[in-house]
């Protein structure tokens, strides 16, 4: 499995992780779906590594029914104005997963058809799963976006 967008491949705990170039994520996902038969996007999420930079990792879990295999693709995204291309054009299931990541982490997905909050109320301030967001409390000190 080789594609110019894959920067590094790691095997750990019996699972394969590909680190990918975030600017080419769309082409890479298209390659995985069409050439390698990973027809399902099983899940899409993010991890916040605050305060290190690049701060976010967007994590894609792909599943191939034909080959009975799963791979993980990860893209590092900077904390200053985090943005990455939406993979909605490849798998429609990315729609809600990306909305959830936008809601919880504030990562923007370019070319997403309807990028609004999904779990939190529409007028909510802040992104709850960021590490600098407190676990409890009525008021929180969160720097203006």
């Amino acid at each position, binding site marked *: 499995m080789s594609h110019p967008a894959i920067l590094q491949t790691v095997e*750990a*705990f*019996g*699972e394969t*992780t590909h680190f990918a170039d975030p600017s080419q994520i769309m082409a890479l996902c298209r390659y995985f779906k069409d050439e390698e038969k990973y*027809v*399902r*996007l*099983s*899940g899409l*999420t993010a*991890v*916040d590594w605050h305060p290190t930079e690049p701060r976010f990792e967007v*994590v894609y*879990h792909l599943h191939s*029914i034909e080959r*009975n295999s*799963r791979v*993980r693709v990860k893209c590092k995204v900077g904390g200053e104005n985090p943005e990455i291309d939406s993979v909605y054009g490849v*798998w*429609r*299931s990315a*729609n*809600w997963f990306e909305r959830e990541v936008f809601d*919880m982490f504030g990562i923007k997905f370019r070319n997403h058809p309807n990028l609004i*909050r*999904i*779990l*939190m*109320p529409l007028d909510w301030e802040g992104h*709850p*799963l960021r590490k600098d*967001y407190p*676990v409890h409390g009525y008021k929180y000190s969160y720097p203006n976006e």
Partner: protein
Amino acid sequence: MSKDILDHVATIAAEQEVPASPSAPRRMTLNMGPQHPSTHGVLRIVLELEGETIRSAEPDIGFLHTGIEKQCEALTYAKVVTLTDRVDYLSNLSNNLVYALAVEKLLQIEIPQKAQWLRVMMTEFSRLNSHLVWLGTHALDIGAMSIFFYCFREREEILRILEQFSGQRMMTSYIRIGGVSLEPPRGWQKNVGKFIRGFPAKVDEYENLLDSNPIWGIRTKSVGFVALEDMLDLGVTGPMIRGAGMPLDCRKTEPYSSYDKFNFEVATRNGNDVYSRYQVRMQEMRESAKIITQALEGMPEGPYQADAPHVMLPDREKMKTQMEALIYHFKIVTEGFRVPAGEVYQCIESPRGEIGYYIVSDGTSKPYRVHMRTPSFGNLQALPVLLKDVLIADSIAALGSMDFVLGDTDR
């Protein structure tokens, strides 16, 4: 009423005036939920209607969001087990199991055979529990009322068995990291055996009650079609996709917890409608009964928890007599145990479909990130496709056939 509200009502009324061209159909927007009996929880669906036909349906979720993923990051690994119960409250043992398996993968500890078999048996009980609640409420929505009481009669027996094993009826937290929480109670074989021998006849009874009713057939056959390609693309799993003829089941394709040692079939049907999903679930109940019977007959001897003193709490007896055990107990309870840094994705087959936990550890005693890929969240995305151009009366049957739990969707 204040003037603002009256103005607002007037604007809405003006928008819904008869359109200029008399041939163009008039559309109406209808809010279904969040408090609607057939959504089984707090789900809001915005329906665009043309007469009785739904032209578009947009689900609105998040009413039951409780921030479980955020709370997981603030608790030690052992304490998170109780939170996983609350994600999908109809099949909490599946959630316990997937979390325990993921953490065990990071810890790389070996689970004894007996614990694995107990886990299989209990998750199958929780599958029966979930399917029984689904069957009862789904039939109730469609108008078959008596089946509800039959299903809950058997569900009560299952909850009683769960209580015997774990001390709790619903939020069991029975499956823990490294094994199960308690030794099975004395005489458990008798209770489980009595229940499971009579259960297949009960499934026949339900099927007889429903299939001999012509209204059931009319309301469920050829209703709720979603193309298989759409399902794969939209992330649908579980009985929905198996009702479309795709034998996608993690228990067979990626066996966990000794499922490869059990003899069972993956139930599939080709109808791709509400009726085939019902048939798939009925077949799954029979298969679960088969698995439980095999677990009952072949239950291995041995310990019910792993031999890992740095993770498992020591025996009560040892704790009171041995210094070393007391120290371990104190350390594990106060600090928790450290988990090696890394990341894993573990998925299992819950009654609703693929449930996957992605756990990132940074080497401390608290998980750095826990992401729950829940089946209801994936399945609900297919709702706009499922309800498109469907009569509003059929939407109730189509919705019910998805078998979603809103706690599972919103977490």
